């Protein structure tokens, strides 16, 4: 099986869209928008795919980590108006960095609590996992209403990340470029951890065969907790980025984006970080191209993509050997 073929789908879809879009600058704008959207989806989905692959847990509460991360980050951003309104990027970072850390910390802590209290009693039982994690998601949404109120909260972007810049005639939103850079950095960091460290080796082995990892003398339960917390923290990072992308946030934003996240991890192959990355880019690009070329088809484009990919590779783009 050639590993580069699924990856080649990303430029292939881009090139196929080129003649359908009226001008090249528009195509460039749509492509960057699609890549940015894909990167944010990847950040939110990567933790879930590892949790599913390693722990075989259907965690619908992942959406709660996204929402809670977004609210925690937004609270910090809104509280640091001077830094947000600074005309220098370094000044903006003075708000963004604490916001991201708060989002990841709170979402990670919530993930740790969920693993211990909600998920641990139902390991090995998918039906109960769906029920309790869906319940947890609903409870978290209601708690967000209690703490932050039920209304939509507007979240202006930091001053230097508003507006666009031009590459030729193509307008590129500054925030989207940042999303691409952050997404690539997260992917590179995950790739390095998974492929260049012993912990990564254990995670990759555990995704394939947990029982054998235990038989080799490793206490995989500790690894589970670490991956769950890291995945939740990444969801929090994705949540605050998604909120800044949409310039608003609601308690239901996590649940809304979960449909796309599940599509991405199924397309990529359950448990595969590389597959999740490629799947997220495909979903992001297709959503933007189809949203522009044939808006009425936009809603169904992700489902259609999933159907086509599963017909081609029933276990996803990069199936993990089990």
């Amino acid at each position, binding site marked *: 099986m050639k590993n580069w073929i699924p990856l080649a789908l990303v430029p292939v879809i881009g090139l196929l869209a080129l003649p359908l879009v009226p001008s090249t600058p528009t195509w460039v704008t749509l492509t960057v928008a699609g890549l940015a959207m894909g990167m944010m989806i990847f950040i939110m989905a990567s933790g879930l795919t590892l949790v599913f692959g390693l722990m075989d847990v259907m965690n619908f509460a992942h959406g709660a980590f996204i929402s809670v991360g977004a609210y925690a980050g937004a609270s910090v951003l809104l509280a640091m108006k001077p830094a947000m309104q600074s005309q220098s990027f370094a000044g903006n970072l003075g708000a963004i960095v604490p916001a991201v850390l708060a989002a990841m910390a709170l979402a990670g802590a919530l993930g740790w609590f969920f693993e211990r209290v909600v998920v641990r009693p139902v390991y090995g039982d998918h039906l109960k996992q769906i029920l309790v994690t869906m319940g947890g998601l609903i409870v978290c949404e209601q708690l967000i209403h209690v703490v932050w109120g039920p209304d939509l909260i507007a979240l202006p972007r930091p001053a230097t990340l508003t507006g666009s810049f031009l590459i030729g005639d193509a307008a590129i939103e500054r925030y989207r470029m940042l999303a691409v850079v952050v997404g690539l950095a997260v992917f590179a960091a995950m790739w390095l951890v998974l492929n260049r460290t012993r912990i990564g*080796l254990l995670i*990759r*082995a555990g995704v*394939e065969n947990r029982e*054998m*990892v235990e*038989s080799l*003398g490793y206490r995989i339960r500790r690894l589970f907790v670490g991956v769950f917390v890291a995945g939740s923290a990444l969801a929090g990072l994705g949540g605050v980025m998604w909120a800044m992308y949409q310039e608003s946030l609601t308690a239901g934003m996590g649940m809304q984006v979960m449909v796309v996240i599940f599509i991405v991890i199924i397309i990529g192959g359950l448990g595969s970080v590389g597959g999740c990355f490629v799947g997220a880019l495909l979903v992001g690009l297709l959503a933007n191209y189809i949203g522009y070329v044939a808006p009425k088809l936009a809603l169904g484009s992700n489902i259609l993509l999933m159907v086509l990919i599963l017909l081609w590779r029933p276990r996803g783009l990069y199936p*993990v*050997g089990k």
Partner: protein
Amino acid sequence: MSRVSELLELRGVNTHIGQYHILHGVDFAVAPNSLTMLLGRNGAGKTTCLRTIMGLWRASAGSIKFEQQDITRTPTPELARRGIAYVPENMGIFAGLTVRENLLLAARAGPLDEQRLERIFALFPAMKKFWQAFAGNLSGGQKQMLAISRAIVEPRKLLLVDEPTKGLAPAIIQAMIEAFRELKRETTLLVVEQNFHFARSLGDAVAVMDSGRIVHRGRMAELAADEALQQRLLGLSLDTHQ
């Protein structure tokens, strides 16, 4: 009667898997520095027995002792740390990892020991040849070699090996016999096997299971010499012609 010299001892071990009662009071022992064959028809409970020893299924009654210590409730990772290695029937290799990474993972103490690695390469030259290849791309025989290499990449006190010749070509089985002869010199083995030629060639002691019970214990040479006993205990399901 328990003998102090036994490395592993099972007494009255019962195992339930869900509603099914698989092991019904299994009693046998494995002496140190020996190779004990665990034989029996399909469904006799051999694999369940190995998995129960390894802690992958819990004994519902009875006791398991390793080096005179009770390990009946000991978690699997702790058993591995005490020196028990397990090679499951499906070999349990990590297909998405390279041969090198599979061995690296099994070397808990740290980097791979060069001397042991050379010995593994001497036993299984294919491991050196496919060092950077993904384990999922290896042939069935090579996967089995990798599974056994992984079990011995660090010194172990006891190897539990489940059907090492299953699905292998006769030439590979012969290579496996030679490899197990080498392994016998440094460690104790408990091997589940269906291939009687393999069992006869290597076994010092034998225990035969039927319907979740031990129905015969003794020296392998005695069972190998008694065709009537073989027929009575093992029937036709055991391949005596390979």
